[in-house]
């Protein structure tokens, strides 16, 4: 339907999943062949050169992370694909795996070679049973064809890949919690340092990347760094990204779009504009943990740098749009409830602080709130942001902070009128 370069979605067919033959026909596993002819170091350098940044939310440069990894250290090492995808507004990894799961398998095989890792796990959330089966099938096919397992393509390099089905809870997406989850421990996050690259799964060097991040790697190996970097609209960005549209839009699907594409274009062209002829009020540009953007910011290019300049984050590039009829206090309350419920219970600002935030938003939204509580909401944000053990509570403060900064009047009105001004 669209004229944007399709890399990750080039094999996407409605309701169908690309099997090995289709994938191979489209140049599948050529990247792995290339990689195996290069030195592991060279592969990591190449990925760094592309400027590929993690798609899991933190946006850390993937090549840099791979170069930190103690690839030469002998013994057990682990490679983990993070497919927990529980950030509200984010459903790209699911669509990716349903459309073309071999990209993940090949991407992980390349990463494994680049970091000399013998064992990998694909970590999938409870709700993604269908994806789990697709990935298992892809793994079986790849093994049968010699792209996985012992002595891959006669290179002498071996890599075995397993699927882990989780049992719910957003925090498992946090990489160290995920590692505890895989170990069968309570999935509270671990303190960093030590970073997973030093001591991760079972205390061994471990690299975690998002599903989509891995999916980019085969294409990078096949087409090179310049090509990949060139896919982006802005010099700050690199490659394409999967943008999941949701909320009050005419079309809510996942689109593969060039990095740096302006928000307005995404909403108008791909999303078909705000549903029912209503007007745009705000959006979460990168998932539930990213600060709201307002209509005034619609020209912001969707890449890490520009969104941070706009006071938000690219996160997981899940764009959730709210129309003019939306009460932003209510919307924020919904988000806060999510984070409070998904807290792992380890640290105080998140476990108990978010509960206080929820209570304050409930009071304010219901029109029972007063000025003191408005002020209290402010000091909650000030003291939770950057103070929690992991980034969950930090993320929770994204929208709440933006509510205070950008929709302060709406909050004020709730207090002044003693009710929701939009009801």
């Amino acid at each position, binding site marked *: 339907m669209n004229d944007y370069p399709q890399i990750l979605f080039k094999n996407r067919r409605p*309701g169908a999943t690309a099997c090995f033959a289709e994938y191979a026909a489209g140049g599948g596993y050529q990247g792995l062949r290339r990689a195996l002819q290069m030195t592991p170091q060279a592969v990591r350098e190449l990925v760094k050169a592309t400027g590929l940044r993690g798609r899991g939310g933190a946006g850390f440069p993937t090549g840099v992370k791979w170069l930190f990894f103690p690839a030469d250290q002998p013994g057990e090492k682990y490679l983990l694909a993070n497919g927990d*995808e*529980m*950030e*509200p*507004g*984010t*459903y790209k*990894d*699911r669509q990716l795996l*349903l459309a073309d799961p071999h990209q993940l398998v090949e991407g992980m095989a390349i990463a494994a070679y680049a970091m000399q890792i013998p064992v990998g796990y694909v970590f999938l*959330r*409870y*709700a*993604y*049973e*269908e994806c789990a*089966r697709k990935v298992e099938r892809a793994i079986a096919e790849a093994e049968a064809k010699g792209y996985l397992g012992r002595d891959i393509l006669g290179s002498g390099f071996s890599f075995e890949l397993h699927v*882990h*089905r*989780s*049992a*719910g*809870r*957003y925090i498992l997406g946090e990489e160290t919690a995920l590692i505890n*989850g*895989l*170990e*069968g*421990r*309570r*999935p509270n996050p671990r303190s960093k340092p030590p970073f997973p690259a030093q001591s991760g799964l*079972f205390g061994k060097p471990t690299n975690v990347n998002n599903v989509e991040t891995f999916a980019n790697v085969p294409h990078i190996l096949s087409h090179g760094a310049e090509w990949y970097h060139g896919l982006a609209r802005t010099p700050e960005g690199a490659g394409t990204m999967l943008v*999941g*549209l*949701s*909320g*009050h839009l005419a079309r*809510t*699907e*996942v689109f593969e779009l060039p990095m740096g594409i302006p928000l307005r274009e995404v909403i108008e062209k791909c999303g078909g504009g705000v549903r029912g002829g209503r007007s745009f009020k705000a959006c*979460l540009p990168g998932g*539930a943990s990213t600060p709201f953007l307002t209509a005034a910011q619609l020209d912001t290019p969707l890449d890490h740098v520009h969104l941070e300049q706009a006071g938000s984050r690219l996160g997981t590039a*899940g764009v*959730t749009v*709210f129309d003019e009829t*939306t009460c932003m206090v209510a*919307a924020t309350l*919904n*988000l806060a*409830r*999510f984070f409070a*419920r*998904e807290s*792992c219970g380890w640290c105080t600002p998140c476990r108990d602080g978010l509960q206080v935030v929820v209570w304050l938003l409930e009071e304010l939204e219901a029109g029972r709130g007063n000025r003191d509580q408005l002020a209290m909401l402010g000091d909650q944000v000030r003291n939770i942001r950057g103070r929690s053990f992991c980034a969950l509570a930090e993320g929770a403060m994204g929208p709440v902070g933006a509510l205070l900064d950008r929709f302060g009047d709406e909050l004020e009105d709730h207090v002044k009128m003693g009710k929701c001004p939009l009801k």
Partner: protein
Amino acid sequence: MSELLPQNQIDEFRARAAAIAHPHELIVDALRAVQSHHGWVPDAGVDLVAELLGVLPVEVEEVATFYDKIFRRPVGRRVIHVCDSICCWAGGGEAIAGHLQEALGIGFGETSADGIFTLLPTCCLGACGDAPAMMVGLTTHGRLTPERIDAILQQEREAFAESKDFHHQDTRTPREP
């Protein structure tokens, strides 16, 4: 299903646990296996998992009670998880949840009188593009309307009436929205 786990799976878990260095890593798998076979994880299930893997019962319980998709209390044959996160909320999720409660005559956390359905809220199901969404067993249904919901519930009831065996949701192949 009164039996917690079929013998072949019991043997399999024993063997796998014995073969690996960190049997704890099988706790979630084993809990899920018990749940998909027995419907939920009773105390005896926690003890069984601990025994099969050679870990402490508390260690199993610590994990079991952390995850929201491991049921430590009896549930119906089909657990309905209704998404209450932002996208579904924006898409009228609250009304959908209301309709479900009416249609089933139960509130959240309750099981319908016929013992078939248990209704639970859940965070984002990863079906944000198809909001509002719910998951019945392991099958996600999106773009819900009261009508669709009634139809789905009806299907489930029939499927359940037919199925002589009392196997649980996990054994049915899920459909995508």
